[in-house]
């Protein structure tokens, strides 16, 4: 049974489709893996073994009835606990939502179910997706299977840890400023942030609405692409979702795997390098870029001057939106309620609940955002940040006039130790330097493992124009193909 957990999603789906293995056995193998490893990893907030097995049985029944199964039917998946699931507790890793059982499914969960994927449970994250290490989770940090003293990244660290530790072949993450790509990079797996509007946000507990985007994690580029195609597409329930054809990312992954990039121009973002970037990361990236050139790509340097201001702009826009999005957690309708002794005023109950229910980082961002939107400060902070956002988008447009994709490190550093960095918000924010520009511009970006630095995985970030997600997958697949063995193979056994 243990062999199931090492297989890719594509391989598992094949076994189910041709009747070699049952979805139930595959699911049980992953549940067993969770049982044996999650005390050490803390990747899951909730495991829904019963629901998972019932879903697997339903897939097996469909196959037994002779139905043609969708491409990923019977494949287990882990879902970040900020994605709303009907009947299954959804917490956003916050005390304020502990015990909340949603009455509806996020659109992407509906799509997973329709495609016959088997949700195993809900994965850990930084509270409300605010953080880069999962240390802001109300339920304790998740741990990196490469080194249990280190972070699996954040905010989708539970999802990245689960996939890297073979608890699930696939996972759903969400990415607001890098929360899929950075954890993928730090755990040696593939993670993609789709074009903004490419995947429905309906049912994602909002952190920053204009930036949030759900996307896939997988151990292979093709797996991530197959999952991308399941969750992508227009949703009438999300007016910001794009009513345009979904890019053919699985085909692009297959084409890229051939290792031929002739005709492609790859731009290296010159200012996402230098001070603050670990030498091991810089050299792994440089080696990979040289590989890309070997595969026929033309490589050019691309200065993107306004990327230097992405961090400042992001940490005004995201907190501003979060200060409004998180206002609804007020003890009135659901979730935690503190101090209601029938005498306390409404304000006291609201304030007491929010004080007790939100962690320090969430409070920090709510306060920053409230300040930035205040009369008299709006133009100087929120307004100015939006202007920077426009300039960053223009940097991308200029760059893409001369290249097909842009590349950079996904993270300036490899997986860091849990503890010290969590004490210093600015040091933690700096981890997002490379991922923020694509978030602000709404363009797609993928992280693919490309090497090691001091024995820990390094990810290459590949960014493409809006709705050219397929280019990310094509180049990522080429990088994957160029490696002698998968990066993850170097991870210690757990």
């Amino acid at each position, binding site marked *: 049974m243990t062999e199931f957990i090492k297989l890719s999603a594509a391989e598992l789906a094949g076994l189910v489709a041709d009747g070699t293995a049952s979805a139930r056995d595959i699911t049980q193998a992953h549940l067993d893996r969770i049982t044996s490893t999650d005390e050490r990893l803390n990747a899951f907030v909730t495991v829904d073994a019963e629901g998972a097995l019932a879903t697997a049985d339903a897939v097996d029944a469909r196959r037994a009835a002779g139905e043609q199964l969708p491409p990923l039917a019977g494949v287990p998946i882990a879902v970040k606990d900020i994605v*709303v699931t009907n009947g299954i507790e959804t917490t956003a890793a916050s005390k304020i939502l502990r015990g909340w059982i949603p009455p509806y499914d996020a659109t992407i969960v509906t799509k997973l179910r329709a495609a016959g994927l088997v949700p195993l449970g809900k994965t850990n994250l930084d509270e409300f997706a605010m953080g880069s290490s999962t240390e802001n989770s109300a339920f304790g940090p998740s741990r990196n299977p490469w080194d249990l003293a280190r972070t699996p990244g954040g905010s989708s660290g539970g999802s990245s840890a689960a996939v890297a530790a073979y608890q699930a072949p696939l996972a759903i993450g969400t990415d607001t400023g890098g929360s899929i790509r950075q954890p993928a990079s730090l755990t040696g797996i593939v993670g993609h942030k789709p074009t903004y509007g490419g995947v429905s946000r309906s049912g994602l507990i909002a952190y*920053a*609405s204009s930036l949030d985007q759900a996307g896939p994690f997988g151990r292979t580029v093709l797996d991530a692409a197959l999952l991308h195609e399941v969750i992508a597409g227009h949703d*009438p329930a999300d007016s910001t979702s794009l009513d345009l054809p979904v890019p053919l990312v699985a085909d692009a992954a297959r084409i890229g795997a051939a290792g031929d990039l002739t005709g492609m121009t790859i731009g290296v973002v010159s200012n996402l390098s230098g001070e603050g970037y670990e030498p091991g990361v810089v050299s792994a990236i440089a080696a990979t870029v040289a590989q890309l050139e070997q595969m026929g790509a033309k490589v050019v340097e691309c200065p993107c001057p306004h990327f230097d201001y992405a961090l400042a702009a992001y940490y005004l826009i995201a907190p501003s939106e979060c200060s*409004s999005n998180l206002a609804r957690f*007020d003890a*009135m*309708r*659901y979730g935690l309620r503190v101090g209601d002794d029938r005498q306390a005023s409404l*304000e006291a109950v609201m304030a007491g609940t929010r004080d007790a229910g939100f962690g320090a980082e969430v409070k920090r961002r709510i306060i920053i955002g409230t300040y930035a939107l205040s009369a008299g400060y709006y133009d100087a902070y929120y307004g100015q940040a939006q202007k920077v956002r426009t300039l960053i988008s223009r940097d991308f447009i200029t760059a893409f006039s001369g290249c097909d994709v842009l590349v950079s490190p996904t993270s300036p550093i490899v997986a860091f130790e849990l503890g010290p960095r969590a004490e210093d918000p600015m040091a933690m924010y700096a981890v997002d330097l490379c991922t923020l520009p694509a978030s602000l511009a709404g363009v797609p970006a993928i992280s693919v493992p490309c090497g090691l630095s001091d024995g820990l995985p390094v990810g290459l970030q590949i960014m493409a124009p809006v709705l050219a997600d397929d280019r990310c997958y094509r180049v990522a697949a080429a990088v994957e193909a160029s490696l002698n063995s998968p990066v993850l193979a170097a991870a210690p056994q757990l």
Partner: protein
Amino acid sequence: MHPPSSMTPVAPQPDAATAPIAPRSFDQVIASYQPVIGLETHIELGTRTKMFCGCAAAFGDEPNTNICPVCLGLPGALPVANAAAVESAILIGLALNCSIASWCRFARKNYFYPDMPKNFQISQYDEPLCFDGWLDVRLPGDSVDIDGNVEQPSSVRIEIERVHMEEDTGKSLHVGGATGRIHGATHSLVDYNRAGIPLVEIVTKPITGTGERAPEVARAYATQLRDVIRALGVSDVRMEQGSMRCDVNTSLQPIGASEWGTRTETKNVNSLRSVERAVRSEMCRQAGVLDAGIRIVQETRHFHEDTGQTTSGRSKEEATDYRYFPEPDLVPLAPETAWVDSLRERLPELSAEKLARLQTEWGLTDKDMAAVLGAGAVQLIAATIAAGATAEVARKWWLGELARRANADGVELEGLAITPKQVAEVQQLVDRGSLNDKLARQAIEGVLAGEGEPGQVVAARGLEVVSDTDTLGAAVDAAIAANAEVAQKVRDGKVAAAGALVGAVMKTTKGQADAQTVCTLILERLSAS
């Protein structure tokens, strides 16, 4: 929409500065000040579904039955704009001669209040859907100039600043207090059926130079705005049900001064009549304060129907900062020119032209028409005519008996529990001779009291005119026998004396006899004997 001053039960603030100051008389106000007014009107659109979700936008259903994750603001739920509501808002903008924005956004207005599920309201801020319009308002009655000449009813152009869209809040119900208000309540319940119902807010520019007519200008504007919107069919615009709500801004400028005074915003103005009363009362109050040498506090005030006075609400000088910013969950609204043009073609007859046409059709003088407009009876009369009554009769009922009853009950005409069709039915019974004028008024009374359709009321109350000669013959004989002297006078040729006998018969038949038949029977009997 603004939140109340506090979330906890708090007594209305006493008017510390103004409590001991007596208001001035209206004439005194006009002698020293020029009023500046402005109106902010909220209209609940009559769309089938809510502004941002598919829930029914229904009035009066069981609490918390028309709700879903979106209008409850559950985590993860997203709004999607209702195209029918946008269309209605554009129609209102066009009918008010506004420009329609080619691109605009929704904005979030952030404040905490339990009847707002998200603790922000989706509204519009600096990019309204419609802007820079006007409405020409006719004033009722006539006025007399200094030379004693009667002037024709006049018209005032009210400039419209903006028409924008927003979602309604839920409704708080305060339980345990005597009055149902937050003051004295032990706890509050919230009904979210109303949360997310589409609203359109119509804001006038400041209205200046109307002097002593300011209160009636305010009322005339509200009345005719209501009529325009009702003609569009986009809302039932009923103030008593809250589907139209007016907030009235008032300030006073000392005559000769170059700057306007500080304004107050009066809320809780729940009828057209109250719009007029609220402006008048606030003008008198402000003049009292100013004459005492005290400055006006910029604040929200609440109008009280019973006393006709306003009391202080929340001071705007310590107002909430709403932290407006563009709503990131919604794409911008960009109505295409072709769509707006097609809506423009769908507009019903423009109100001024329509009124001129109706006045001609109904054969009314300018003064009569102004009275009809002032009473807000245009649509009621038109509907009564459509149901079969003549123009003259329809106007007589609505401006006569029904206006009297509405006034007595302190409601608008349309708030009466009678439909134009029912009025027309009563008139048809009169025309058929089944009812006389007095009985018709009783039939109306029965309909208003909820006793059913006119036919049912007539049957139940036994109101039908008695013209059956056998039944009446006995009453006539009895009257002749009881009034022998009068009868003799009639026999002697004094036919006019028969009136007294008719009166006696009417009395014994409780007014239900057909007077003409009675008269004929009396004369037959007295000439025959």
